[in-house]
Structures are given as structure tokens and as C-alpha cells.
């Protein structure tokens, strides 16, 4: 499997002296193509920090963040912004759609910002909206859609073009059980088709859709589930 995201001994320290807080402490983390990895932990465990560092929205105090082999620190602001438009898709709890733009326009925006022509960008947006099951809603505005539909648009925006890394921060938080499950099915599908996904969640039921579940406590990875089968864990317990 190709490694798409790699955090190598990454730490993030906020403040200094007496008010110093270590949000992430020497964390090593990878997500490969075709893999969905969930990150779980209580508030303040560092899970959102991990995601913002992976998305290049914040920089580590030490260690390196590599996306498709490129060190985010050496890319500079413009390079990172370009990577966010072309390779990384972000999905947020509150959808973060632009209210004045239609579904198709929301999805095509990152492509247009990257210099793709309007017609070509719209065509790509329609493909992405088809992939998330709402091709008929392309010309609706966010306030004309349900929460579940808006989140589908957000996922389409996160995968439009040829993005290989999807970062999702509590994407089902604002949705009911059934709709949340639909969204997870979609995320799962995008990963099965080759994207690497990182899902930050505090819901065990949602984390269970991932291939691996990484547990964070106080900025440190304390355990991981999924690499080993249940039977192996149970056997280890008996020894």
C-alpha cells in the first residue's frame, strides 16, 4: 500500500513556560491509499491537532508531516495552499459550505481556484456529486438541502478532482444515526476506491467503520485496534 500521509515524531506545543501545553507529543502516524484510519480520544487528547497538522492548516513544533512524500514544512504557504486545493480534502462537522453558492459551485470552487476552467470544473463537480448519490441536487443552495445532503456535498468537495487524502473531523456529529451511517458508508467507499482517509471521532460506532482505530491520550498514541484480529487479542489475553 502506498503511504499517502505520514506524521513522523510530530509534536505540537502551544504557549511557553508556565502556560506551555503539549497538544501532540512525538506522534508517528500513517494513512495509506485504500485505508480509512479513525482517531479516537477524549477532548484535549490531540486528535483535532493531528488533523490540522495533517491538512497543513498548522505547523508542528518538531517532526515532519509528509503528504504523498512532500514535506509540508518545505512547501511554503503557497505550496501548502496548492496541496490543500489539489490533494487534500477536508470534511467538517458543520459542513462549511458557502451559502451563496449552489452544490455544484461549492464542489467546483477548489478546482476553479486552482485554475481549472469553469466548464471543466463543473463537469468534475457533477461527477463527484454523482459519486455521493445526489446528482439531482447540483443546482440547489445549501439552505435548500437537509443536513445529510449538505454533508454529501461536503464529501463531494473533499474528493473532487484527484484527491487522495480525505481528512474528516467529526463529520457525522450534526446528523442522526441513519444519515450519519450513510455518510460513513460514503467515506468508506471513497477509501475502498483508493483514497486515504483519516476520521476523527469520539463515537466508537463510527470509528468502527475504519480499518484501524488509533487511540490518543494526552497527545500520545496509547494503542491501536484493527491491525490484529479479535481472536489474536483474546488469545494474547489468555496467555
Amino acid at each position: 500500500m502506498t503511504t499517502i500521509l505520514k506524521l513522523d515524531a510530530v509534536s505540537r506545543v502551544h504557549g511557553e513556560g508556565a502556560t506551555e501545553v503539549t497538544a501532540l507529543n512525538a506522534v508517528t502516524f500513517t494513512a495509506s491509499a485504500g485505508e480509512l484510519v479513525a482517531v479516537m480520544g477524549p477532548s484535549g487528547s490531540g486528535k483535532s491537532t493531528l488533523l490540522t497538522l495533517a491538512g497543513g492548516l498548522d505547523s508542528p513544533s518538531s517532526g515532519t508531516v509528509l503528504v504523498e512524500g512532500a514535506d509540508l514544512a518545505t512547501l511554503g504557504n503557497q505550496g501548502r495552499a496548492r496541496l490543500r486545493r489539489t490533494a487534500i480534502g477536508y470534511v467538517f462537522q458543520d459542513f462549511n459550505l458557502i451559502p451563496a453558492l449552489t452544490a455544484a459551485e461549492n464542489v467546483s470552487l477548489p478546482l476553479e481556484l486552482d485554475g481549472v476552467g469553469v466548464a471543466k470544473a463543473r463537469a468534475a463537480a457533477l461527477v463527484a456529486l454523482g459519486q455521493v448519490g445526489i446528482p439531482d441536487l447540483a443546482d440547489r443552495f445549501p439552505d435548500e438541502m437537509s443536513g445529510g445532503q449538505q454533508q454529501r456535498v461536503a464529501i463531494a468537495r473533499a474528493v473532487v478532482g484527484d484527491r487522495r487524502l480525505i481528512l474528516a473531523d467529526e463529520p457525522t456529529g450534526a446528523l442522526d444515526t441513519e444519515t450519519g451511517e450513510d455518510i460513513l458508508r460514503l467515506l468508506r467507499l471513497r477509501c475502498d476506491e483508493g483514497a486515504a482517509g483519516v476520521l476523527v471521532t469520539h463515537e466508537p460506532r463510527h470509528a468502527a467503520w475504519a480499518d484501524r482505530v488509533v487511540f490518543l491520550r494526552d497527545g500520545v498514541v496509547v494503542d491501536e485496534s484493527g491491525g490484529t484480529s479479535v481472536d489474536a487479542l483474546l488469545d494474547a489475553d489468555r496467555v
Partner: protein
Amino acid sequence: MSVKMGLLALLADGPQYGYQLRAEFEGRTGSTWPLNVGQVYTTLARLERDHLVEPAGSEEGRVLYRITDAGQDEVAAWFLTPVIRTQPARDELAIKLAFAVTVSGVDVGAVIQRQRTATMAALQDYTRLKRQDHDLAWTLVLDAMVFQTEAEIRWLDHCEARLRRAATERRVVATPAEDTADKETSR
């Protein structure tokens, strides 16, 4: 109880042979609770003794069973009677944690984390099964497993949070002078 009532509920739909009942029972519950044929026939014998089912002919030595009126009443009453949860089954995990926090020298955090990882792996297995297409009956049984497993993880999270709070409170009580000194230096 659930095997007896399950078989009776299946017979409420029409007469069946023992081996058919076993296949139907397992089919509707995704083989979550496998039955052996012996169990099916002993249960049918008891149902017949209690006049809830009766033989309705046989073919090649196999007996066809049919539900009686009394059996129909029993099934109707079963569906409308809530399952009683006040007498919990002995829960090894709850007992283990109760001892882990009271016996000295146990790393309770490790006990919790190790269990949470194993329970999460089980939850991932159930979720993987859910991703395949199943009939409605099995999907609902799977969902029951998913919600029960999730509840265990939530409970473990809760235990960990409680233990952390208790540990913090113990530290504050144990070192009041040091605590005050810290505050003064930070000012």
C-alpha cells in the same frame, strides 16, 4: 426461553419440520446463536408436552409440527411482554474492573485500554458484517450487537474519566502546600 419462544413464533407462521425450524432460527439471527438439532427436538418435545404444539403428520420418519391455539396465545403474549433487565447477567468485565480498582498493584489504565482495544476490534468486525447486504432480521440482530459493544466502549471511557478525576482529587488533597506554592510562583 428465547429458543422455546423463537421456535413457537416460527410455527405460528405455519407447520414445519424440526430441521426447517433450526435453519429458519439461524437464518433470521445470522447464526449468532447456533442451535443443534438435539436442542430443537428436546424443545419441541417440551412444547408438545405443554400442549403448545402438536404433531401434524410425518414424512420419511420426520415429524411435522403445528402450533395449537394455546401456542398462538403464548406467542402473542411473548411479543407484548417486555424483556426484564433488572436481574443483570453476571458481567465478567464489570466484576474485573471492580476488583482492578480495589486490589493493590493493578494498572487499571492498562486493563481499561486493553479491553477497549479488544472491544473496538469486535465492533469493527460487526461493522464489517453490516457493510455486506443482509436481510432485515439479521441486520437488526447485528445492530443489537453494535449498540451493545459500543455501550461497553462508552462505559470504559466513562470509567477512565472517573479514575482520572479521582486521581486528580487525590493529588490535590495530598499536596495542598505544594499546590499553593505553584500558584504563587506562576503569579
